[in-house]
């Protein structure tokens, strides 16, 4: 911990070469100076060690993103250099396309429903499992299994089970609940709820594991003290557990929101690009792939990518600014001010 604080201040100090060289650093022994001499040898080492990672990262992460912003201004089929500059027309088309507006609406729905469905359910499950019980570790593992399985497997399996003559309807019938049988996948009123069910099934394990880890960080003494003072179980959860779980819950919500905004695999595998829009499950990402690469309009696809990125970025920054802020204020305020650990 101390090392962390020190290193944060370290970076701020404008260390000229003179400071970095031998004597000065040794004069301040408590500060965990990493290495003294920064001669040519050290510079070469730095270059050799960071170089490969930096090249790969700049070339394949940063460069494409920058290029997307550039390509987005062109009408471009993806062959040869883009020449047909059309300014903001791609962006105008995107904003006015009802298909894109629907996709945004679906993404918004998924964001909200994910939080409302998974959050409370996972929290209750974590509360339930956070006690002395046999087989707790195996229970945790089993709840987590769907999270580890590939989206493709999940999508293929669920789409087979949810056919009108599939296992789910059949099972309902066997249990005497035949009236509940539905056209789960293509009924536009229902499909988004089906998707939510699958998303919850796949990702709730992650939330439960995260919350359990958070719960185990809460000292028992607090609960005991409250119990002695006569608080009921639910009062303890409401006034002690929930506030103390705040940071964990907020981080989870952040990840869930970003994941929901970028949702692609499950929708594309289960519904495909065409059915997704008629069934009402299309997302910004499936729209991007369908209208961009699949339609051969790379200029347009890149513009959609930029819109998707900007929306995610704005949501992330707003969330960081207004929700996550209080978690980080105490711990790494110094870093926050410098924006070093800000996303």
């Amino acid at each position, binding site marked *: 911990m101390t090392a962390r604080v020190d290193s944060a201040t370290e970076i701020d100090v404008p260390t000229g070469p003179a400071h970095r060289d031998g004597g000065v650093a040794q004069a301040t022994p408590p500060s965990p100076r990493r290495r003294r001499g920064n001669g040519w040898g050290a510079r070469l080492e730095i270059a050799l060690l960071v170089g490969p990672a930096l090249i790969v990262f700049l070339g394949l992460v940063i460069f494409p993103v920058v290029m997307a912003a550039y390509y987005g201004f062109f009408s471009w089929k993806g062959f040869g250099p883009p020449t047909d500059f059309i300014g903001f027309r791609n962006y105008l088309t995107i904003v006015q396309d009802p298909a894109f507006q629907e996709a945004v609406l679906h993404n918004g729905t998924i964001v909200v429903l994910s939080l409302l469905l998974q959050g409370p359910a996972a929290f209750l499950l974590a509360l339930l499992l956070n006690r002395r019980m046999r087989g707790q570790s195996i229970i945790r593992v089993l709840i987590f299994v769907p999270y580890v399985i590939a989206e493709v497997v999940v999508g293929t399996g669920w789409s*087979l089970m949810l056919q009108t003559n599939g296992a789910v309807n059949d099972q309902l019938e066997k249990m005497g609940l035949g009236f509940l049988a539905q056209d789960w996948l293509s009924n536009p009123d229902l499909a988004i709820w089906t998707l939510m069910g699958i998303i919850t099934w796949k990702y709730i394990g992650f939330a439960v594991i995260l919350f359990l880890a958070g719960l185990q960080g809460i000292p028992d003494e607090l609960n005991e003290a409250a119990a002695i003072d006569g608080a009921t179980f639910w009062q303890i959860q409401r006034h002690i557990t929930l506030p103390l779980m705040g940071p964990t819950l907020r981080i989870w919500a952040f990840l869930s929101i970003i994941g929901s905004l970028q949702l692609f695999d499950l929708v594309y595998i289960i519904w495909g690009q065409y059915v997704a829009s008629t069934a009402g499950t299309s997302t910004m990402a499936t729209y991007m792939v369908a209208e961009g690469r699949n339609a051969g309009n790379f200029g347009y696809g890149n513009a959609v990518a930029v819109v998707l990125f900007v929306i995610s970025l704005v949501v992330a920054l707003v969330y960081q600014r207004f929700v996550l802020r209080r978690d980080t204020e105490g711990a790494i305020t110094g870093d926050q001010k410098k924006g070093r650990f800000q996303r």
Partner: protein
Amino acid sequence: MTAYPETAAAVLPLRRRGRPSKSPRLRAASPIVYLVALVVIGLMLAPIAYIIIGGFRTNSQITVDPSGLPDPWVFANYLDVLTGEVFWRQVLNSAIVGFATTLGVIVLGLMASFVLARYNFAGRGALYALFAAGLMFPLTVAITPLYIVVRSLGLMNSLGGVILPQIAFALPVTIIILVPFLRAIPEEIQEAAAIDGCSRLGFFWRMVLPLSVPGVVTVGILAFVGSWNSYLLPLFILNDQAAFTLPLGVQAFSSEYSVDTAKVLAFTSLSMIPALIFFSVFERRIVGGLTGAVKG
């Protein structure tokens, strides 16, 4: 996510975390708790069981009774898949991509993290911030332009075209996990090594590598599982059946044999076995690594 430096603290004590060593004062579980847990686990496992068991049925069994048990059990579907060349080729492709990605992420990530953690130089903070900012660019957002970059590198339809971008996109998380980890190695060790005549690189090789194994394992597992399951990138880069990885293969198989449900189920369940084995072996690491990497 913001409190990156906390990660090491969260990852390091993994070994000790094993059993929830909570005091015995924690409320004991009642039968109702077990019942609820059983129901939840049933819900989580039923779809997986359906896929695996369905592979042991025939199509007519599935049509007549979609949610029944095999009667009799048939092994033809699994044998067909296992004796076919397609499945094994895709397993091989997925394995190559997975291991190459993992290796690349570990090697590049460890080298860069070592510098960021233990060298002093102007611009170190900026460099760290640059890598950390990579978290803002998930693959989904960058896929369209990335596809163009990979194409102009001439890497279409080659596994390298999947491996390199996967390494690049895994670097931010890797560096964020490893830097605090390497920073936590006491300065005294480095000084002692220096006194004993160990150069910086020698220190890296002889001390940092062995000491950073737990962090590296976490990072490697995240990279491997992510690569094994990845779908969007191979979908864009690999159009040639011969280069398909398992996720693409499962999807191609299920549309090609869409009438042969039983075989699709057999193929699908075989494709998840490697991931399930991997998960059961490294379960504690994966769970711990994910919560460690995420907890603030």
